[in-house]
């Protein structure tokens, strides 16, 4: 049913066609006095497409079906927590008084929004065990930046500006080191040990008087819980550093154990992973940061607070704050979705969520380990990392396997990450999937493994049935055609 109508919207354009309506101008037309002075005026109109409303609808509808998406089938992308997002979340975010409110409206007519934010902060504080929360960061990476800036400010405040080294395991997500540099600090990378965990000796060696912090993903990106977490946090604390948890994998822990209780001082959450903000093809997300009480003064401004009379207020008077990271209050719409999600789930629901996520991941690990290879022993938490290296001798790479999965109508796992696993396949089923779906996935993987041995060409040339097949990425980068231009002539 899907034709790849390869036309861009610009290529459907026809002079004079429009898809909008404007109210009748019921005020006087502009007088010369009011006109924009000539030098400020636009001369050449932008070459936007000229199309009708039906054409716009058809174009976007037709390109949309070229996408895989969670509402279609399994999306086992490790580290991405592609869970199903209950539709009530979107309904909540679109309600009157939620989607149509101005961020600078007086607080007296924003009490609903402020109450919601306050309630969400309270829930996230409880879930993480870290009592002070900012909801401003727009995504995980901005949450990391928030925390690293706070960390820097904290040390400076304590008269230790020399503390500017941040220790990061080699299995960490790329945003961690990138963030550290932007926050004006330096990265010390440490190798993981044979079990895929933090190597305590390496950690000790890295710690020192310049240690600002350690960033630790737990469960780590292999899906393994850092069993020495208490020792790790204690070591860093002893050295005078803070311990930051990259909370991208919180779907494994929520309701089971709390980062605050493990000794973490700060962390971010990815609401678009753990707490059901849909990914939107790459965003929006939200990356709240939760911290120890004594770090609260450094949180971004403004902060939602509740006064003694029960009224809510934005507190701008935060002299130690690192400042703002967003023009307004962050991705409020995402925060509404998470609030709806947490209200829907409640405490038992949150516990069930992580429990099922862990069970599903272990189920897949158990079923897939014999077919592929499990470089680090389980049990895993919410995701498992396999290696596809045994097919290399047949010329089949993990990327080929990933592409072949697409032919079966599912998405591919995250591949080649974490970097420390050769030919990595990182698989995260989430709690939303039924056993039936997991079994279908296992069956597909088994089929592909067989093909890789018996008929490797079919895998190496995959995908075969998708709208397009292996775009030439080299050409894309070389030519850097980043916008459409009309054909010459």
């Amino acid at each position, binding site marked *: 049913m899907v034709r790849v109508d390869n036309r861009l919207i610009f290529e459907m354009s026809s002079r004079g066609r429009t898809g909008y309506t404007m109210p009748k101008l019921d005020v006087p037309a502009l007088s010369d006095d009011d006109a924009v002075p000539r030098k400020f005026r636009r001369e050449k109109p*932008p070459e936007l497409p*000229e199309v009708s409303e039906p054409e716009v609808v058809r174009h976007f509808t037709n390109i949309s079906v070229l996408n895989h998406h969670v509402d279609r089938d399994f999306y086992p992308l490790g580290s991405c927590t592609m869970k199903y997002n209950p539709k009530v979340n979107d309904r909540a975010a679109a309600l009157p008084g939620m989607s149509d409110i101005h961020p600078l409206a007086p607080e007296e007519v924003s009490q609903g929004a402020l109450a919601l934010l306050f309630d969400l902060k309270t829930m996230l504080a409880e879930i993480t065990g870290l009592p002070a929360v900012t909801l401003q960061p727009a995504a995980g990476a901005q949450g990391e930046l928030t925390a690293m800036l706070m960390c820097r400010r904290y040390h400076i405040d304590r008269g230790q500006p020399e503390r500017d080294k941040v220790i990061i395991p080699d299995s960490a997500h790329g945003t961690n080191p990138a963030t550290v540099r932007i926050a004006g600090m330096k990265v010390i990378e440490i190798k993981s040990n044979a079990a895929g965990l933090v190597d305590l000796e390496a950690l000790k060696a890295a710690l020192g008087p310049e240690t600002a912090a350690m960033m630790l993903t737990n469960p780590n990106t292999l899906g393994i819980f850092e069993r020495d*977490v208490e020792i790790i946090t204690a070591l860093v604390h002893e050295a005078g550093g803070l311990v930051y948890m990259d909370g991208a994998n919180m779907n494994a822990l929520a309701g089971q154990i709390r980062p605050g209780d493990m000794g973490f001082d700060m962390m971010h959450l990815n609401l678009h992973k753990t707490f059901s903000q849909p990914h939107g093809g790459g965003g929006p997300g939200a990356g709240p940061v939760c911290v120890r009480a004594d770090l609260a003064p450094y949180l971004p401004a403004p902060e939602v607070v509740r006064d003694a009379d029960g009224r809510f207020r934005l507190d701008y008077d935060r002299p130690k704050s690192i400042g703002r990271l967003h*023009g307004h209050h962050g991705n409020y719409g995402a925060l509404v979705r998470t609030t709806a999600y947490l209200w829907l789930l409640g405490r038992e629901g949150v516990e069930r969520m992580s429990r099922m996520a862990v069970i599903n991941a272990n189920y897949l690990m158990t079923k897939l380990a014999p077919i592929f290879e499990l470089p680090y022993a389980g049990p895993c938490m919410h995701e498992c990392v396999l290696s596809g290296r045994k097919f290399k001798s047949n010329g089949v790479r993990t990327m080929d396997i990933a592409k072949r999965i697409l032919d079966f109508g599912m998405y591919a796992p995250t591949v080649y990450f974490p970097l420390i696993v050769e030919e990595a396949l990182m698989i995260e089923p989430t709690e939303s999937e039924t056993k039936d779906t997991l079994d279908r996935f296992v069956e597909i993987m088994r089929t592909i493994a067989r093909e890789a041995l018996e008929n490797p060409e079919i895998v190496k040339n995959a995908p075969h049935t998708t709208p397009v097949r292996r775009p030439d990425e080299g050409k894309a980068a070389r030519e850097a055609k980043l916008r459409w231009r009309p054909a010459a002539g």
Partner: protein
Amino acid sequence: MLEAIGVRRFEDLLLSLPEKLRLKGHLDIHPGRSEWEVVRDISALGNQNAGAGRYTCFLGGGIYDHHIPSVIDHVTMRSEFYTAYTPYQAEVSQGTLIAIYEFQTMISELTGLPVANASLYDGASAAGEAALLAASVTGRSKTIIAGRFHPHYRDTLKTYVEMSGHQVVVDPAPDHVADLDWLKANLDDSTAAVFVQHPNFFGQLEAMDEIRELTQAKGGLFVAVVDPSTLGILAPPGAYGADIAVGECQPLGIPMAYGGPVAGFFAANQKYLRQMPGRLVGETVDRDGKRCWTLTLQTREQHIRREKATSNICTNQTLLAHRATVYMSLLGPAGIRELGEQCHARASHAARTIAAIPGYSIPLSGAHVKEFVVQCPVPAADVVRCGLEHQILAGLDLGRFDSAWKDLLLVAVTEKRSAADILKLSEVLAAAAASSVGSGGPRG
């Protein structure tokens, strides 16, 4: 399933978790609610807010109450778009990739700059990223903010760069536009970039040509912060020589939603391409020679380059960029121009109407293309409060930002504001002045 895994109880899977730290009881959050209760309870909160469906909105300051064509929700809320992940597997992500490519093209057209990225978090953080880029390509450490700049953008920009040892200096702009003498005095060889918002925070047009000349003469980057809804009538940044243009897509079909999610855009001169933050989609061909699209130049990004990445951004605001893309598709060149003209005509009418109310004046001359400052005879906060009684968000009390501005009200007028709405606003303003006189309340 536990059986298949080979454990007896779920807890057996958690043996690596320190037993004593495991939660014993329940989390201290409420039990679950039914879907109906969630909708009911969030609706109840919504009723405590000044939704634009109930309140007539003259608030602006970066977020505007423009009309959102119905097509946008319909199309972008298709599961295909909003429940998809980042388009890593291009084969099954052409929908998202095409839409981003179209966004990049439209932003490029609107700004008159050759390259635009796939979106950043918002306009303010886009300014922060631009400052980082400028510092990095010039190797210089001073960032100048000229003219009357949005205080939230200013603060965000500072947060982004100051901690890595950069200095931000801010034009006092006593006339509420850039003070060129101040600028000349502060521009030097350590200046990485000069940022100017245009129209500025007070709705004024800035001397972009002059500032560009001064800036580039010193080897700094000239960064324009612009409102895309004005670019149908105002010259695009490319036309006045900006090196970078950043801004907020919210006016282009994105709900106000208390300020987020919105989407920042980032457009630049070709030569900064390899330093650009954020994702980029490029055209290529597939194995069968078919034209298609893919994420490209990813070596700039954190997941490849790690600490050497041009930015730490990963998740961005794609769905909101889609909204802007659909919006711009609907409007086309004629619509984007008419949008600008309508806001302009309505804002001018509002300004003229308000200027005629005893006690009120429009202190700044110059075209009001969408937003303008009103000098009130009473504290602007009183005017705002009076508006609430009449379900009007009368504008932004500038006293929130600077006590010297406490009598200044910033009024934004979009194409949604009818002559009747403007009349209602003027009545509120008149009433606010009168009631204050009557009550003997505090004056100026």
